[in-house]
C-alpha cells in the first residue's frame, strides 16, 4: 500500500539505524507517548536495533490504559441496565473493572456491541428508538473530532435516546505531569503524530522550551519511528531543545482546523483522573453544558459507583517511564492478555500487551 510499504523498507530503515549508532555518545532515555508507536517499536523489533545506550520508555498514550477504573465500573453499571444498548470500541470490552468487564456483561445477556466509528452508534440510536443507546467515548485528541461529530449529529437529528459516557484525555498536560515529576528520567519525546494531526503542535512548544527537552512529532511506520528517534537523538547530542516535525506528510503546526472547531464547540477542558497516574489538571474534555442532554453520566445515575484497583498492577510506573513491564511480578503469570489484571495488558496499544505478544524480556 502506498505510504505504508516504502516506510517499512529494510534498506531505508538500515540507513537510520547505522546513523543512530554513529551518533550516540552517551546514555539517553526517550519516551514515545503513543501506544501505537510502542506497538510499532515492539512489532518490528526496533527497540532491539537501537544502541544499548538508548532506552525507550513507553508513555501513557493508550486510551484503554488510562481510562479511570471508576468509569469502567460506571460503563458496566449502565450496560447492565435493561433497555440499554451499550456501544464501545472493541478493545474497551475486556478492560478489567473493579469486579467485572463489559464482555462479561455481554456474556450474561447485556446488549453490548462493538462499533468501529461513533457514527455507527448514532445509526443504532436511529434504528432502535426503543433502546437507550450509550457510546463509550474514550480516547485522546485523535478521537475527539469523531465523538464531537457523533454528538453534533445526534443533536441535529433530535435523538433523545443517544448519549455518551465520556473520558477524553489530552496529551500536553500529561507530558507536563511527567516532566515535573521529581523522579522523571525522560530526556526527550517522540510526540504523537495522530494527536498532532488533529491539534497541531503549538501547545508543545512552550513545554519543550520550559523544560529544555526535544520533542519530535512522529508517525507510526518503522521508518517514521527511526527518523523520529534519530532526530530526537540529534537534538539531545547537540544540546538542542524545542519541537520538530518528522510527520509533516500528515501534520501541520496548526493541525486540522475543521476538526478542532467542532471539538471546541462540543467539548470543554476539564480536570481528569488518569488510571495509574492520578488527577492531572486540565487534562481532559467533557461535554459543554449545552450538550448535557447527551451526557450518559447525567442520564443514568452512576456517580455512587466506587472503584477498587488491583494492588498488584504497576501500570502507573510503566506509563511514567519509571519501570518496564517485565519488572511487574504479575507480568505474564497472573496478568496475561487472556486474563488481564491491569489495563496495559489489554489493548494492542498497551505496553504490557506489546511486550507479551512480542516476547520482550527486558
Amino acid at each position, binding site marked *: 500500500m502506498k*505510504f505504508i510499504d516504502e516506510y517499512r523498507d529494510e534498506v531505508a530503515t538500515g540507513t537510520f539505524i547505522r546513523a543512530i549508532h554513529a551518533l550516540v555518545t552517551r546514555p539517553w532515555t526517550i519516551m514515545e507517548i503513543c501506544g501505537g508507536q510502542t506497538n510499532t517499536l515492539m512489532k518490528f523489533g526496533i527497540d532491539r536495533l537501537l544502541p544499548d545506550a538508548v532506552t525507550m520508555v513507553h508513555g501513557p498514550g493508550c486510551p484503554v490504559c488510562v481510562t479511570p477504573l471508576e468509569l469502567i465500573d460506571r460503563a458496566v453499571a449502565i450496560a447492565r441496565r435493561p433497555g440499554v444498548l451499550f456501544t464501545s470500541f472493541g478493545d474497551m470490552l475486556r478492560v478489567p473493572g473493579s469486579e467485572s468487564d463489559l464482555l462479561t456483561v455481554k456474556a450474561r445477556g447485556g446488549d453490548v456491541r462493538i462499533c468501529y*466509528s*461513533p*457514527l455507527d452508534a448514532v445509526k443504532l440510536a436511529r434504528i432502535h428508538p426503543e433502546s437507550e443507546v450509550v457510546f463509550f467515548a474514550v480516547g485522546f485528541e485523535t478521537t475527539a473530532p469523531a465523538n464531537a461529530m457523533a454528538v453534533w449529529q445526534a443533536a441535529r437529528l433530535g435523538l433523545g435516546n443517544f448519549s455518551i459516557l465520556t473520558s477524553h484525555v489530552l496529551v500536553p498536560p500529561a507530558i507536563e505531569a511527567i516532566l515535573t515529576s521529581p523522579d522523571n528520567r525522560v530526556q526527550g519525546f517522540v510526540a504523537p503524530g495522530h494527536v498532532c494531526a488533529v491539534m497541531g503542535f503549538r501547545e508543545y512548544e512552550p513545554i519543550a522550551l520550559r523544560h529544555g527537552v526535544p520533542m519530535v512529532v512522529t508517525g507510526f511506520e518503522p521508518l517514521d519511528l527511526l527518523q523520529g528517534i534519530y532526530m530526537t537523538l540529534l537534538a539531545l547530542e547537540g544540546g538542542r531543545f524545542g519541537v520538530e516535525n518528522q510527520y*509533516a*506528510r500528515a501534520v501541520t503546526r496548526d493541525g*486540522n482546523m475543521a476538526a478542532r472547531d467542532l471539538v471546541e464547540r462540543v467539548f470543554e477542558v476539564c480536570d481528569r483522573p488518569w488510571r495509574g497516574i492520578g488527577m492531572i489538571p486540565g487534562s481532559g474534555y467533557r461535554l459543554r453544558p449545552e450538550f448535557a442532554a447527551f451526557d450518559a453520566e447525567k442520564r443514568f445515575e452512576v456517580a455512587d459507583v466506587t472503584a477498587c484497583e488491583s494492588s498488584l498492577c504497576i501500570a502507573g510506573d510503566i506509563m511514567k517511564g519509571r519501570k518496564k513491564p517485565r519488572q511487574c511480578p504479575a507480568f505474564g503469570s497472573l496478568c496475561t492478555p487472556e486474563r488481564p489484571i491491569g489495563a496495559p495488558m489489554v489493548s494492542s496499544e498497551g505496553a504490557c500487551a506489546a511486550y507479551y505478544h512480542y516476547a520482550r524480556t527486558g
Partner: protein
Amino acid sequence: MTQGKVSFGGITKDVCLAYVPGVVVGDYVVVHVGFAISRIDENEAAEVFRLLEEMNETAELKIPQPS
C-alpha cells in the same frame, strides 16, 4: 456531513470526510475511527527519501578510498 469511500489496500470503507474539506478522488488520507483526519502531503512524504539519499551519499564519502 460529507461521506466518501476509502480503500485500505483493497478493503473499502465508508469514511466521514467532513474534516478534510477540498479532498478529491485519488487523494490519500489518514483515517481514525471512520473519520479522515488529515490529507497526505505527497511532497512532504517524499522528503525522507531525499534525506536518505543525502545520508547515503555522505556515508559513501566517508568510506576510505584505496589510493
